């Protein structure tokens, strides 16, 4: 089992909690990998729109294989169940190790307490995928999972 590279650390003090890239450097530690991870973090922050990014590990089920042969067609599903009184307005997906961090954004026209979406994505190499759930009340939750990719999507 590979270690999770991205961790969501909610700062206990201060007005703005932060999403922090934690732990280990990306595989190989190349400049490009670092740049892509930085771009992903910026994209995640932008999607959160300044809201505190809360740890969504208990609220979001991210179904993603831990190991795939082919990065061109990676199945992904995200199920969100928000606390009572909150409704899912949108789900965003991000890739830490692709040329562009954004994967997709889904919006729900009739938000409810739960939402589920499934798709297939491209991953250029082994990396971390982040899912961010946006509640109608402006709260933002996120979780992440790591995928090992044998053959990356064509580049």
């Amino acid at each position, binding site marked *: 089992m590979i270690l999770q590279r991205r961790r969501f650390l909610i700062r206990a003090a201060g007005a703005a909690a932060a999403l922090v890239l934690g732990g280990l450097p990306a595989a190989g530690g190349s400049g490009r990998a670092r740049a892509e991870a930085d771009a992903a973090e910026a994209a995640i922050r932008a999607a959160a729109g300044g809201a505190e990014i809360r740890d969504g590990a208990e609220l979001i089920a991210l179904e993603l294989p831990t190991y795939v042969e082919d990065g061109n067609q990676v199945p992904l599903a995200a199920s969100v169940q928000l606390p009572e009184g909150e409704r899912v307005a949108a789900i965003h997906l991000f890739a830490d190790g692709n040329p562009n961090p954004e994967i997709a954004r889904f919006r729900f*026209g009739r938000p409810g307490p739960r939402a589920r979406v499934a798709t*297939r*994505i491209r991953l250029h190499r082994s990396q971390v995928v982040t899912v961010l759930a946006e509640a109608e009340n402006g709260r933002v939750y996120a979780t992440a999972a790591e995928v090992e990719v044998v053959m990356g999507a064509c580049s």
Partner: protein
Amino acid sequence: MSESIRPRIRVPDQAAPGEVVEILAMLTHPHDSGHRTDPATGTTIARHIVERFTCRLDGALVFEATLHPAVAANPYLAFELTAERGGRLDFEWIDDRGAVFTAEAELRVI
């Protein structure tokens, strides 16, 4: 080859009031990322992606997707809908060359 681009959808035949149903929508579209090289010519294959998908029930938006190159070819989307009432589901895909593809289905709530 736009003639080979076509939508496929799956909607349950019927649903009970309040039932959560899964809707599947796929477009057979190359969704070329613009990062790929044609092995025959060595040139980059131009970006050609589906940018936006919407599903409406009797005109009211129920689901909307904004897609980036990291979505796989033949973009496939499955999403849930709470069947409060029946009606006509309209599906629409728009790609980055302005092409629009549509499909429709009837959701029966009994």
